[in-house]
């Protein structure tokens, strides 16, 4: 399998705060990588460095042969092929669902109206929301908004999809629909990097799981190994908190 994402020696600091302390990671085409780890460990920052929403302090990020950390790179061109889905959905609130899906196709990819609409309809159908095409974002539930956001990214025909805790802002009963769409995307062969706290999803869908803590990758491997039989103490502690949150010992700092 060919390499799509190649990250080496990635560092990121916010002022004196070292958030990423040297990350090396390659993602192959069609691979699904889930990133797990405690709050503040740098998961979002890592993901945001992959499409340069955050400017790395050091190291290299190469996506599909283009070095994003090269100062002369056409970052807008590179981002067209990297979809991103946010925890807070971030649909354009002044635009209808259809316009959310067509605006970048038309203005960035310069597609004609008819083609952009056709692509939009296709992708809305893919996430099961064909009938919401004329709705405004405010009229949709959180789960529906997130699926529209996924369809919006897919309309750009990306090579890579980044998901930053896509279900964390959702009511529990809406999580399943969004995970279902992501599962289907994975089955269709999309390359995905997913920051998530949904361990069940990670176990079933991820080809590889990364456990991050303190700005480094502590442990990585197949989902069943990292989540099922973690080798590192920190991973075990984290998982026991996430999987069984009611049973911390007394004085546990996360309570």
């Amino acid at each position, binding site marked *: 399998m060919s390499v799509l994402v190649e990250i080496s020696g990635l560092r990121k600091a916010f002022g004196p705060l070292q958030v990423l302390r040297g990350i090396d990671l390659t993602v192959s085409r069609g691979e699904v990588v889930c990133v797990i780890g405690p709050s503040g460990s740098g998961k979002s920052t890592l993901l945001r460095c992959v*499409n340069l*929403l955050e400017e790395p302090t050091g190291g290299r990020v190469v996506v599909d042969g283009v070095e994003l950390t090269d100062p002369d790179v056409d970052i*807008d*061109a590179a*981002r*067209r092929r*990297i*979809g*991103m889905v*946010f925890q*807070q959905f*971030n*649909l*354009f*609130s*002044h635009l209808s669902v259809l316009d959310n899906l067509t*605006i*970048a196709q038309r*203005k*960035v*990819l310069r597609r004609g109206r008819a083609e952009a609409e056709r692509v939009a309809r296709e992708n809305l159908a893919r996430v099961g929301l064909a009938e919401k095409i004329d709705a405004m974002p405010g009229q949709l539930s959180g789960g529906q908004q997130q699926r529209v*956001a996924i369809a*919006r*990214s897919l309309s*750009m025909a990306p090579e890579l999809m980044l998901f930053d805790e896509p279900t964390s802002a959702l009511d529990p009963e809406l999580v399943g629909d969004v995970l279902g769409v992501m599962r289907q995307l994975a089955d269709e062969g999309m390359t995905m990097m997913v920051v998530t706290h949904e361990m069940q999803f990670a176990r079933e869908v991820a080809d590889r799981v990364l456990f991050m803590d303190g700005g480094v990758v502590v442990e990585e491997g197949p989902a069943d190994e990292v989540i099922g039989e973690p080798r590192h103490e920190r991973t075990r502690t984290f998982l026991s908190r996430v999987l069984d949150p009611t049973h911390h010992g007394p004085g546990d700092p996360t309570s």
Partner: protein
Amino acid sequence: MALSKRRRAQVVRGVQYGVLVVAAVALALAVDWQQVRHAFLDADAAGRLFPGIILTGLKNTLVYAALGFAVGLGLGLVLALMRMSSVGPYRWLATAYIEFFRGVPALLVFIAFGFGVPLAFQIRFDTYSTVALSLGLVGAAYMAETIRAGIQAVPKGQVEAARSLGMPAGMAMFTIVIPQAFRIILPPLTNELILLTKDSSLVYLLGVARDEYELTKIGREALNVSPNLTPILVAGLCYLIITIPLSQLSRYLERRTGGRRISSPESTGLEVKA
């Protein structure tokens, strides 16, 4: 004897109404109604104002306010973007501009534009350009701050979503952020238009032709031939014909945007309720 809380509130309210009524009656008795009728309510004098006060005065007031607003909005947007620029000199320039034009009376700007600039640059503006520029320059200083507050009230995630779809920064600003910002600031912008409508009366400073008179000028000119002050009252009522619908509109827009509001341009803070 202890009154219940509700009873006490009723008593307090009753007393407040009582005081108001007494004050109103006292004022009404103190006024010499005969004099007022002579001075302000002369039907003949009022009648002579029509239709000129509508066809010329009201029309020109509307035109001046609209032109000033258009110039102010365009320039205000440029200033707002400069204010938020990462380029130092742009920020300083915009700040200096805003401080200056918010700090000096509009009257002085009218004088500068009506007489000073034509003198200094040897160019002549017609009345409409002079008014549009003077009102626009002053209005822009206020609107720049309103627009900036609106832009900053748009959640950061909107830009991030736009950029990650491959939009360059400028495109994200103009197609995603600014349209949302203007929705948020429609109510304060409407108030800005009301202020400009009233400030357009400063045109009286310039020597303007008869068909360029606006409401205040028409009222003042009519005073010369009127035996009383009725024209001033009529001119005032004409302003209200413009401003009251505008402020109703502003209130309606504020309700419709669901509580998201930006404070007036005078204060720098802004409140955004989700």
